[in-house]
């Protein structure tokens, strides 16, 4: 149990100290750097206190205890210092500017008094160095006083912090702050359980109850508390970092998934590719965006090569094979249109009425062109209707489904093989 408590304590300490360092590193960017400094100091202090309090550290540092339980005292003083930093930070956050300095001075005075009192009480307690000093000497009035003073300082810091979170930050409609709020509320709940456990331990000792592994329970609760505080204070920054990297992974995967469709289409219509992007421009999201647009441009360029019967045949084949109507069938239809258009393009067979180059001839008149386009919208050719995806993610999702259908759906094979000319086209695509 001591091993688990130590491991949890070290992990929590690492999280808290890292969080403190991250916050301190950003201090120069903030005009309210006092708040940032106190928050960083609180996190680093509580991290150090947690690491020092672990059974493993206490065992390893026993030779350093020139005075009985000196290392334990140092750890506790770091924790009390963290509580002071929290109070000072909150004072800077909400007190009137002219009240800040006197209040922080008063708090510092109380801190010094508490520190001196703890040192004095420990010295008077006449303890011997032990990992479980609080419980071993619970019946010692000086040691009990030491523990009570320590708990009061910690609870005072925690309750003020919780009050601030509930009172001020809960009014903010920022989603990230709400995450912080939830985590810090959880931390405060664990902190109260930790304080209650410590108090219960003291009382239990006084009434003669023997508790098994109570120190390890206390350490585990403290580790959980410190972890939640460390994560909660820096979660928005971490979440953003994680989210950015998750987006990069998603973008890279989307690029890979769209590669076959994009390559096939841009090989057929090479003019749609934007040449020579500046390497400084070519971020992954830019590359993905260009890929989507180039696919759509190629689809548009290939429209006149779609045989008018293809959508009908694709729908019929999809229905026969039990593909649900709606988006799944639409994907099949679009893939079939692409497959047919690619083949016709290779064969140089335009199927739509305007087989002459666009705007290349005085007739048919533009009126006829537009009305034929309207007919095409209402008719069987349903490629790229405006009711399809609106944003980039939806476009990617849609195009990946089309790509998969184009390259692997047996329905496309069937549609192509039963085409007007009966050609087998699948080998050209795959």
């Amino acid at each position, binding site marked *: 149990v001591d091993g688990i408590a130590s491991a949890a304590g070290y992990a929590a300490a690492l999280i808290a100290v890292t969080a403190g360092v991250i916050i301190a590193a950003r201090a120069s960017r903030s005009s309210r750097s006092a708040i940032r400094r106190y928050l960083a100091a609180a996190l680093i202090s509580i991290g150090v206190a947690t690491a020092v309090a672990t059974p493993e550290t206490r065992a390893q540092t026993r030779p350093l205890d020139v005075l009985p339980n000196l290392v334990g005292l140092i750890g506790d003083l770091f924790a009390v210092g963290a509580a002071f930093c929290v109070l000072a930070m909150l004072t800077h956050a909400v007190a009137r500017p002219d009240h800040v300095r006197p209040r922080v001075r008063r708090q510092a005075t*109380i801190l010094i008094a508490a520190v001196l009192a703890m040192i004095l009480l420990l010295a008077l307690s006449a303890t011997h160095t032990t990992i479980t000093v609080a419980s071993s000497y619970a019946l010692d009035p000086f040691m009990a006083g030491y523990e009570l003073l320590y708990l009061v300082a910690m609870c005072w810091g925690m309750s003020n912090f919780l009050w601030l979170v509930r*009172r001020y930050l809960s009014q903010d409609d920022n989603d990230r702050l709400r995450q912080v709020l939830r985590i810090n509320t959880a931390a405060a709940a664990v902190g109260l359980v930790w304080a209650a456990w410590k108090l219960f331990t003291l009382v239990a000792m006084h009434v003669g109850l023997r508790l098994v592994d109570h120190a390890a329970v206390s350490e585990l609760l403290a580790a959980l508390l410190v972890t939640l505080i460390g994560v909660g204070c820096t979660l928005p920054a971490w979440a953003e970092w994680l989210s950015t990297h998750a987006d990069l992974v998603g973008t890279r995967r989307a690029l890979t998934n769209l590669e076959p469709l994009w390559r096939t289409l841009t090989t057929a219509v090479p003019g749609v590719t934007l040449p020579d992007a500046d390497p400084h421009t070519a971020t992954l999201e830019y590359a993905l965006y260009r890929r989507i647009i180039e696919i*759509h441009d190629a689809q548009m360029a290939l429209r006149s090569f779609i045989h008018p019967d293809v959508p009908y045949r694709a729908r019929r084949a999809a229905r026969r094979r039990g593909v649900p109507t709606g988006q799944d069938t639409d994907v099949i239809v679009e893939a079939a249109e692409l497959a047919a258009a690619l083949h016709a393009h290779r064969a140089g067979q335009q199927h739509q009425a305007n087989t002459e180059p666009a705007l290349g001839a005085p007739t048919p008149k533009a009126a006829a062109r537009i009305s034929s386009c309207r007919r095409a919208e209402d008719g069987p050719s349903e490629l790229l209707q405006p009711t399809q995806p609106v944003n980039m993610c939806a476009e990617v999702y849609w195009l990946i489904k089309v790509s998969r259908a184009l390259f692997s759906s047996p329905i496309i094979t069937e549609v192509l093989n039963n085409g007007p000319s009966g050609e087998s086209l699948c080998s050209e695509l795959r």
Partner: protein
Amino acid sequence: MTTDHAFTVRCKQIIQSLPIPRPFDQQSFFAAIAHQRGKHIELVPAPLDTGLPCGLLVSTDEVDYIVHRTDTTVLHALHTDMHELSHLLLGHGQLPDPVATPDTHSGADLIGAEPVNADAAAEALNLLLPHLSPRLIRRILGRNPGRSLFGTREEWEAETLGSLLMVEIQRPAGAAHRSIDLADHLAHLRPSRRRVPAGPQWTA
């Protein structure tokens, strides 16, 4: 076309100067750009036939008309609008004098570097913008995926700026600027503290 870092830098400067609403709203964005330029921009969705450009920029002294196809996805249509807007932002295709007659539309700039038939171009414009006299047209540029899209420097620039602009508007608000931690929130409490009743005293 050569790689052009200087142009990319220019694009980023242009994008930074634009009043991009968050969340993005196309109507208010184009209205703000029009206000910034002091010239009205009219978006004209049109059911353009297959083979016609997927977008057109038709400029008069008073109005810039941006025509996009209706038979494509919303993202693709918006990209077309951004491409045409980029021509405006980059000052492309300015003609010295208004076009005299429909016959003088060589159409050479209608779809990039591709020559087009003047009559067909004039008829298409008559249908799309029937109230617009060809005499008033000062500039026509088009985006046509059926041809070599980016055969001219101007088309390449407009496509690049349009794409960068589209990537920018799809970023969530503030995503590129900074991350916020608890200290930032605490630091912003002071300006609003008067709205909140005084809390407990921090000192014992």
